[in-house]
């Protein structure tokens, strides 16, 4: 059953050094505020899972939170490299980063299998490519009917899943709308769940009986953090700050400018700093 709490409490109670943590949101609804809290609490040795480790993991990895990254596409979308992740991989700064690399299809299927309580996922994929040569987790099964050999990946079952959503009602049920990504799967696949939301309302206002709603009892901590997806966006709340994504390229390119930005904007701030981005609603 979901419990309302502060972001600091939610991270303190649910995330521990060495945990396997998945923070999802496919461009939309990326839990930036929660990522900043993980950095502020100085968590270490995390295995970070994310299909698209973009700025949020660039920040966390650049600040030394992670020992390992499980991913399928790492970059600043439409802009270029995630410089801090590259610095970790290529130069072990601030520390070495182990990679477990998949394709998007495999990651999506692995979350799906985790949500479905299966130990592995089967996909028609990884054909004729080199990734299976460098990732021993990619294996195969033979179809018992046709004899066809298909690729497999182990299910993802994170210790902690962290997502950002549109809103929660007062019982702690959560609505996600728009590009829903693999948030439902991450929530259902994870042992513990933190959800940050734009607002807490009396009525979810789900417009369709088939809207993506996560019942309270599938969640752990629910935290209102208006603007908490910035510079990503929240459908119906505020738009993606494409200009920030472009600006991040310069901020993150050098270690010094990165550390200065993190000090000023993360270490010396709190989740309430995100509220200013939610305030742009009228303009969007």
């Amino acid at each position, binding site marked *: 059953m979901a419990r309302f709490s502060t972001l600091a409490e939610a991270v303190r109670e649910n995330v521990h050094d060495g945990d396997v943590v998945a923070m999802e949101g496919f461009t939309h609804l990326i839990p930036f505020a929660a990522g900043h809290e993980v950095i502020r609490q100085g968590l270490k040795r995390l295995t970070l899972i994310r299909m*698209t480790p973009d700025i949020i993991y660039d920040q966390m990895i650049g600040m030394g939170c992670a020992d390992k990254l499980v991913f399928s596409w790492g970059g600043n979308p*439409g802009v270029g*490299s995630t410089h801090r992740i590259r610095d970790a991989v*290529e130069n072990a700064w601030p520390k070495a980063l182990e990679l477990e690399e998949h394709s998007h*299809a495999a990651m999506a299927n692995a979350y799906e299998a985790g949500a479905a309580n299966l130990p592995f996922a089967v*996909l028609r994929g990884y054909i004729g490519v*080199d990734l299976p040569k460098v990732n021993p987790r990619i294996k195969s099964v033979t179809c018992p009917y046709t004899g*066809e050999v298909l690729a497999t990946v182990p299910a993802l079952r994170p210790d902690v899943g962290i997502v950002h959503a549109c809103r929660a009602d007062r019982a702690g049920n959560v609505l996600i709308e728009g590009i829903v990504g693999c948030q439902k799967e991450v929530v259902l696949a994870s042992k513990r769940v933190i959800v940050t939301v734009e607002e807490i309302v009396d009525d979810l206002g789900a417009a369709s009986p088939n809207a993506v709603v996560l019942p309270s009892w599938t969640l752990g901590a629910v935290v209102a953090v208006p603007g908490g997806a910035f510079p990503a966006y929240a*459908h119906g709340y505020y738009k993606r700050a494409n200009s920030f994504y472009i600006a991040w390229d310069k901020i993150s390119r050098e270690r010094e400018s990165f550390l200065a930005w993190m000090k000023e904007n993360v270490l010396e701030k709190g989740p309430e700093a995100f509220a200013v981005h939610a305030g742009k609603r009228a303009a969007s």
Partner: protein
Amino acid sequence: MNAYTQNEIMIIAAARALRNEDICFVGIGAPSAACNLARLTHAPDITLIYESGTIATRPDVLPLSIGDGDLCDTALTTVSVPEMFRYWLQGGRMSVGFLGGAQIDRYANLNTTVVGDYHKPKVRLPGGGGAPEIATNCGEIFIIMAMGKRAFVETLPFITSMGHGATGRERRSLGVKTKGPTKLITDLCVFEPDHETKEMTVASIHPGVTRGRIAENCGWAPAFAADMGETPAPTARELEVLRDIQARTKAAHARS
């Protein structure tokens, strides 16, 4: 004749390859520009699908990412990412997949993973994303890439997504029934696979480009088709629509 850049003719030639009835899985960047140009010109009914789950989207500006809000707002419907990869891509629903890449070889295999050794990379690239399964599950593949010797290489350090395989025969030997790369559209010319060898072969040269210039910008000795033609120059309308959406895009990204 209209003045245009080599990048513009690349995007325009790529757009022309698309048909009104295509169901197209769109990569971000140049593929997205080409696909939306096609939609705004000769292929108004084309179905554009992005891996973020947006189906039949009609963005007013080009998205910076694969999941900009505009894609969802203008889509017929938006599905989850697992459903997108399972039912729609793996389900064989896409007639065309449109890819870019960092490096390509003569059989149109692509590398977007690493330069150098995988475990001790010289340059760590973003990785495959959707490409490995796009390459085998879409009916055919169009690739758009500007030429240059660092991009068009004799031997790839890593095969991120399969084109026609290391020898041009791997699709068949691996039991893959889709066509693979049927067009490689560059800033200098358009390649198509040779019927027999599957080697990507220059099928048309952009106006004013020489064979020598193509060879200089290619890491292997490129083959030229016997019936090679000249790429028709961009029309005024194509240039206008392309520049218009790019201007709208730039303005929108600066604002937001």
